[in-house]
């Protein structure tokens, strides 16, 4: 229902706000369906980061809109075609939650039953994602990494080089915001790390942790300005780290190969199968977390800086 009214709201800004609500709502549903991990991701990504990134994009595109020609018909037809395809796709899908659905009959019972004895980790989702589906998750991390490279290639290198004359940051004068954020940023970071390392026991994991960590940096950047943030977190280091995250993941796989197992089979990492799985999962989650956090930070900083530049140019 939210999605429907989303489509009809003309005001772009309002629709961004409604997207926020939409993801909050869907997160509520996920919690209801007991898919806590999904809800976690939805909460962190949908409600927070994507809203901010969309707004950032909005401010960017808002500037260009006047000059650009619009092709609403083409866009509309693309949307309609995609929509029809999606609907056709869902027709084939089994009824929601039906026990005869393929996902429920084949893999799910196996994962749930085996997870306890193979890996000995309370949170099934983590064990499934990081262990049984290690390849898939690795693929996702690579996708995130590639996205960052894409964004950087598009924005960073096309940027007009000029002296960094930053405008005064409006929010720094905002006493209350400044102080409250200063108090809150360290606990948020710590909480991100807590989510990171407790992925095995409670909902969450590398991905969510990365997003939360990035959002604390984004909060800082919003208050103290983009340039200062770029200096403080030192962008080159962040770039290296984001590659490092992928590397960590990959090298765990190689390490397990060296120890005589197959790629990403962590059981061989230690003498005991279960310990091996534990080590493997912790390290891999770390890789995911680092990549996601740095990816978000980089994307945000690059986008936001771009806005600053275009503001100067049009002014």
């Amino acid at each position, binding site marked *: 229902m939210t999605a429907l009214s989303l489509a009809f709201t003309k005001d772009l800004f309002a629709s961004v706000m409604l997207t926020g609500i939409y993801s909050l709502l869907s997160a509520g549903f996920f919690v209801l369906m007991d898919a806590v991990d999904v809800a976690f991701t939805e909460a962190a990504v949908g409600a927070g980061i994507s809203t901010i990134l969309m707004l950032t994009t909005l401010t960017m595109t808002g500037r260009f809109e006047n000059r650009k020609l619009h092709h609403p018909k083409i866009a509309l037809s693309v949307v309609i075609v995609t929509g029809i395809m999606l609907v056709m796709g869902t027709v084939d899908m089994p009824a929601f939650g039906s026990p005869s659905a393929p996902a429920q009959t084949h893999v799910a019972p196996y994962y749930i039953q085996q997870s306890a004895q193979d890996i000995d980790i309370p949170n099934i989702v983590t064990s499934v994602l990081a262990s049984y589906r290690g390849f898939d998750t690795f693929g996702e991390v690579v996708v995130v990494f590639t996205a960052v490279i894409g964004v950087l290639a598009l924005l960073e290198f096309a940027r007009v080089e000029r002296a960094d004359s930053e405008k005064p940051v409006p929010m720094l004068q*905002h006493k*209350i*915001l400044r102080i*409250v954020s200063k*108090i*809150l940023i360290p606990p948020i970071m710590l909480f991100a790390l807590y989510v990171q390392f407790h992925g095995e026991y409670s909902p969450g994991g590398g991905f969510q942790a990365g997003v939360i960590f990035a959002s604390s940096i984004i909060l800082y950047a919003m208050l103290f300005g983009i340039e200062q943030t770029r200096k403080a977190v030192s962008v080159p280091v962040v770039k290296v780290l984001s590659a490092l995250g992928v590397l960590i993941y990959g090298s765990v796989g190689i390490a397990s190969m060296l120890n005589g197992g197959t790629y990403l089979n962590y059981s061989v990492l230690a003498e005991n199968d279960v310990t091996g799985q534990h080590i493997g999962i912790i390290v891999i989650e770390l890789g995911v977390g680092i990549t996601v956090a740095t990816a978000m930070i980089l994307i945000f900083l690059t986008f936001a800086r771009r806005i600053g530049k275009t503001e100067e140019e049009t002014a």
Partner: protein
Amino acid sequence: MSFFIDGLSWALLIIGGFICFSGAIGIHRFPEFFSRMHAASVTDTLGSGLILIGLMLQTGGEVIVLVKLILILLFILITSPTASHALAKAALHGGLRPMQGSHKNDKEDVLNKFGRQNTSDDEQ
């Protein structure tokens, strides 16, 4: 004793729920943005406070749960006024004016210096 605590916690939960509901009614009954903000802050402070305290009484000795609830409550109590203050300030700068009642101070219009100073189109 546990009966007493249970009762207290139920009462807190129900009162908290009622207060949240009242706040939600308030954002519809109040006439304009600035007064609606007060209605919203009702649910943010006392409503969530009572509900969370009600939940705290139900933890049954699980310290971790208790700590997390306290963290949530603290967090809400710190961020909620900050967010509403930022929102109010932004609204003022955006050109919104609060409605004023019978005690409007005509001698000193404290709000006239607000407005869209940094924008070019100020036709209001």
